[in-house]
């Protein structure tokens, strides 16, 4: 079996005397989706912030392509090939789709001018390759739906050569249908050989696209399964209990009827 893109072994992080994360181990492989599930405060964001270079771990090992790493900034992680799409920070709403797409990596001509034609064409092509059909890449991203915005951000990460794509709650604020659209592009990114880390608190979103499931609870791992080892029902049962279960059942009905 080949080396995983990302492997964490017994990784941990403390903020002062608060243990935010301990003894977490999992891996992310090219062409696979690793889902990180857990309720609020379970340590999901601490884990992805370590992977994205925002924070540094203080226990355990973080291997990227087999070598131990410790990113000191998001830029460093990005340069290594780990792109993170945050739920609220994906795009600048008032800017056009193609300007968003190239923000921070603008195509230039004559050394200082923005190459608008190239930008528009490349954006259109890159989006089309991901199966996103936008006729007008000049429209402000704000006119797109929440799902489409996430998709533009995903397509951007794929286009700029990310090896690992971290998605922070990409479906959280979306309706059922929109969430489905985003999950389809998650699968697209996976099929193009990226390793995907999908953070969510919704097992119904995670199960259809995930290959590996890491469950967190109060900063500690509750379980780490491959798809063959766990069913959706079991995943849901582990995630939730009592009142939460009811709410999830309600959502489950929504998924089935759509």
């Amino acid at each position, binding site marked *: 079996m080949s080396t995983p893109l990302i492997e964490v072994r017994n990784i941990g992080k403390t903020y002062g005397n608060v243990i935010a994360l301990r003894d977490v181990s999992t891996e992310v492989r090219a062409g696979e989706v690793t889902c990180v599930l857990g309720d609020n405060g379970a340590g999901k964001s601490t884990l992805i912030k370590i992977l994205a270079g925002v924070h540094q771990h203080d226990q355990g090992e973080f291997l990227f392509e087999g070598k131990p790493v410790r990113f000191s900034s*998001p*830029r460093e992680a*990005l340069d290594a090939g780990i792109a*993170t799409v*945050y739920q609220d*920070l*994906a*795009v*600048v*709403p*008032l*800017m056009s789709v193609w*300007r968003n797409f*190239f*923000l*921070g*990596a*603008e195509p*230039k001509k004559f050394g*200082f*001018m*923005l190459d*608008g034609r190239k930008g528009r064409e490349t954006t259109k092509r890159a989006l089309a390759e991901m199966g996103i*059909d*936008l*006729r*007008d890449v*000049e*429209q*402000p991203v*704000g*006119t*797109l*739906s*929440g*799902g489409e915005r996430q998709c533009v951000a995903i397509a951007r990460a794929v286009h700029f050569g990310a090896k690992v794509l971290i998605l922070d709650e990409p479906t959280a*604020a*979306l*309706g*059922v*249908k*929109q969430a489905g659209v985003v999950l389809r592009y998650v699968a697209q990114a996976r099929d193009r050989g990226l390793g995907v880390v999908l953070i969510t608190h919704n097992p119904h979103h995670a199960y259809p696209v995930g290959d590996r499931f890491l469950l967190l609870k109060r900063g500690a791992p509750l379980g780490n399964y491959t798809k063959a080892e766990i069913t959706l029902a079991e995943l849901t049962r582990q995630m939730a209990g009592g009142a939460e279960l009811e709410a999830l059942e309600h*959502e489950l009905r*929504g998924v089935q*009827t*759509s």
Partner: protein
Amino acid sequence: MTTPTSGSGQESDRATTSTKDERVASVSLTNRLIVRPEIGAALGALVVFLFFSVITEQFLTLSGVATWLDDASTLGIMAIAVALLMIGGEFDLSAGVMTASTALVTALLATQAGLNVWLALLLSLVFALAVGGFNGWLVMRTGLPSFIVTLGTFLALQGLNLGVTRLVTGTVQVSGMRATEGYESAGMLFASTFSIGGQPFRVSVLWWILLTVIAAFVLVKTRFGNWIFAVGGAPTSARAVGVPLVRTKILLFMTTAFAGWVVGSINILRFASVQANQGIGLELQFIIAAVVGGCLLTGGFGSAVGAAIGALIFGMARQGIVYAQWNSDWFMLFLGIMLLSAVLVNNALRRRAERVRR
């Protein structure tokens, strides 16, 4: 089915029309026109122009045109810089008093220290860029609203202008520029006139047009322009994708200070003297012109050309009211109505641009 946001009518409409092409087709032309930030200002300018052309006789004569263009020019030079800064998501309340500070620095260095005017202008430019850089650095460093920080520099500069001028000259004005070395040649650049059809026009009009073209080009056609929109529209997103947020904003503050220096230089070389209390209150006019020109107060949207047109409306209305022999009190009423309608139109536009949020 979960609906996380309380959807408006438009949103639920969208949810039911499932096919993509239908949606895209409905966007097209109207949206593309309306999305231009300067459309409202251009229409407003046309109305003001036609109105005063019809009701007054001098408005459309060459000398009339020269007068209102001149009035609009110095305001316009500032308005486009302020517009860039506002698109970048910040305010500069010290911009008005900066036009006086730079003029005073130039005048004091030339008349009191006996420097060549060109050298005095250069040092004055350094001073302006330093103040602009300081504004930007402080805003970025502290994370305080630029409104407060530049209100501080506004008051500080105002005090410095009066205090230093009185200390050095014993009065609250600096004059005697005509006798200084280099006054004539520097005046050629900043305060001369050129003739069209026998009517002299101020060279400040050319500065205005030139700087508008440069600003519009930078904003739309360069990557720095892309960054200006990004740092104003969504600073954290911009930083997340690698836009140098701090550098971009500091440069924008320095641009405003630079524009203040240009206007200060035009004023001191044209009038050969400067009052220490000049420029106070102008900062709001710059912001108004930028807003009328389509800039959002919240940043991330706007246009340099729009701001130039906003200044043009100002100039035309101010001089038009004089030609119509109305009391100039009416100008403020006009200003208020214009500002309110501009903000209302802008707000509607932004809602349209951010329409579908789910």
